[in-house]
Structures are given as structure tokens and as C-alpha cells.
């Protein structure tokens, strides 16, 4: 097991922010009995290390009620990393995961129309070198989605520090 990334104070701050991302530093400080400066510094460190990120999520309805589509991809093992990188660059794709087991790669995207999905799969994904098979599944009903936990891959603007987690992943992939 790796060392815990968050100490008990970090955890309590994250709990407050998970409940209300807009709570002021002053209010967190008052509730936890520490100074506002401590809260500000802790949040900044967590952001710089890519452990927390504050953003807006908008409802499906504002995007035309899209359906989540999952693409399970089997590929030539020597091409998996290169395919992952190409999928990552496609704006239609929200999520790319390298898997062990059922598929080599799992990609997900949100689509409001089936032609759009078909174009992506047949023209852009199946044609990538090394792709052997793409199994597409369309979500017809979302029963649960936890927006508060994810892999943070985007770094805050103007920050040159490398996310400790991504750095580890890059090494593991190399």
C-alpha cells in the first residue's frame, strides 16, 4: 500500500468541499478550528497535486439529453498505448481506460444521435492501426452517476508541476 495522500485535516477539508464546493475558506476554517490561511494553503496544495479540482457540471438536458455510449475495443497489444493516445485526442470521447480482461480499451462518449456514433466508430476508431474489434453498447437509462470522484487529468492553468499520479501512470505505461 502506498502512503496516504491526504492527512486527517486534508480529509476533513475534502469532506466539507464534497458537500458544498462553494463553501468559503473562512467557513471551513471556523468549522475545523484552524486559520483561513491554513485552509487556503491546503486547498492549493491539493489542487497543485491534482487531487482535487473544482468545476461545473451541467445537466444532460442542456446538452440535448445525450446517451452515454461505451466502446469496448480489442486491439493488437503492441498498439494499445498508441490507440489510447489517439482516442484521448478525439473531442467526441470523454473517457479512455486501458483495461485488463474483457477488452484492451474502453472508451466512452455522449451522443444525441446514432449517425454521429456510427461515424465515430466506423470512420475514426475501426480504422486506427491495430484495432481488431469494437463492441458498442448504448446506455438507455442512467441509474447512478457519482460526479464527485474521477481521474483528474487536466492540470490547473499556469501550473508547471506535474501531477504525481499521472507521472506514475506515464512511467507504468512506458
Amino acid at each position: 500500500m502506498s502512503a496516504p495522500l491526504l492527512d486527517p485535516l486534508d480529509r476533513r477539508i475534502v469532506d466539507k468541499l464534497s458537500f458544498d464546493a462553494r463553501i468559503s475558506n473562512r467557513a471551513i476554517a471556523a468549522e475545523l478550528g484552524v486559520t483561513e490561511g491554513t485552509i487556503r494553503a491546503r486547498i492549493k496544495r491539493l489542487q497543485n497535486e491534482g487531487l482535487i479540482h473544482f468545476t461545473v457540471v451541467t445537466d444532460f438536458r442542456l446538452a440535448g439529453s445525450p446517451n452515454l455510449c461505451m466502446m469496448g475495443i480489442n486491439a493488437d497489444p503492441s498498439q494499445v498505448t498508441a490507440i489510447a493516445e489517439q482516442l484521448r485526442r478525439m473531442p467526441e470521447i470523454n473517457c479512455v481506460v486501458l483495461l485488463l480482461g474483457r477488452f484492451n480499451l474502453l472508451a466512452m462518449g455522449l451522443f444525441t444521435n446514432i449517425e454521429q456514433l456510427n461515424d465515430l466508430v466506423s470512420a475514426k476508431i475501426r480504422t486506427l492501426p491495430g484495432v481488431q474489434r469494437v463492441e458498442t453498447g448504448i446506455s438507455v437509462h442512467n441509474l447512478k452517476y457519482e460526479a464527485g470522484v474521477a481521474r483528474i487529468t487536466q492540470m490547473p492553468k499556469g501550473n508547471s508541476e506535474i501531477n504525481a499520479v499521472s507521472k506514475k501512470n506515464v512511467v507504468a505505461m512506458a
Partner: protein
Amino acid sequence: MQIRNGRMAAPPALDALDNSIIEILRTNGRATNQDIAQQLSVTAATVSARLQKMEDARAMRVVAVTDFAARGYNVIIAVGVRVQGRGIQEVGRDLAKFPEVLSVNAMNGGYDLELMVALHDFSEVQEFLYDHISGIEGVAQIDSGVAVDIVKYEFNVVPLGPT
């Protein structure tokens, strides 16, 4: 042809000011109402009222997204489930009750349900898959893939409305 989610509720109407507030918060969710107000030349009270209105309409939410690693989740598994002898959504709702299950989707495809599961370490995998998930009535078959790397995970459009 349009493929649609079952929910037919009309989208809440957002105006230019609402969208400008969303854009600012997208890059910095911790911007204060005062900061946003100054950038948009309105009052902090207006920003506060607009945010309240949009949250009440379930149009948007400002979220603190924590990395899997920050929660101590070191093992992420994508599980496909085939259901037999019971309604797919009913089985999905039972599976959604596990806190380790981050998402549940009823699917049209090779599997009936797709789950994203987060566990602390490999010692939890066996118990979770073969006792917890397989213990739910109607779960006939599971097929799992262990994530070895997550290269992209950017969902800024999510279901906020009632499901």
C-alpha cells in the same frame, strides 16, 4: 434518428448571463460571487440569485471532484452484467446501492448493465465481485475489466435530474 434517454423534461432556459457565470466557474469553481460579479459587471447578489436558480432547476452544480487516488481508490473495474429472471432496472437499482459502485447504466448491447466500481485494493476484488455483486438476485453473468490506466476522464455533462 434520435436516440433519447427516457426523461422528457424540458431543459431549463439559460440566458447569456447564466452561461457566462457557468464559463467562469468551469475554469475556477472556487471563484467567489464577488469575483464573478466584477468580471461580468453585475452585483454579487445577482450572481448568487442566478446560481441558486440554476441549482434549484438542476441545470448545473459546482462540484469538488476528487481524484480516485485521493479517496484511496486504487482499483477501478468496469463490470458488464447480464441479467436473467428479473427486471434490468430493478437489478441496476440494487447494484447502485453499493457505495463502491460509482455508476450504473442500463445498456442496449452485449451486456444489460454496465458498472464502474472503485475499490481500495486487490484484496477487495474477489469479495466485491463474487459475494456482493453476484449475490444480487437476477445477476446471471459478470465480465470485468481492471483499469490499468485512465488516460481521459472528462465528463462535464452529467445526469443531475431525477433518474
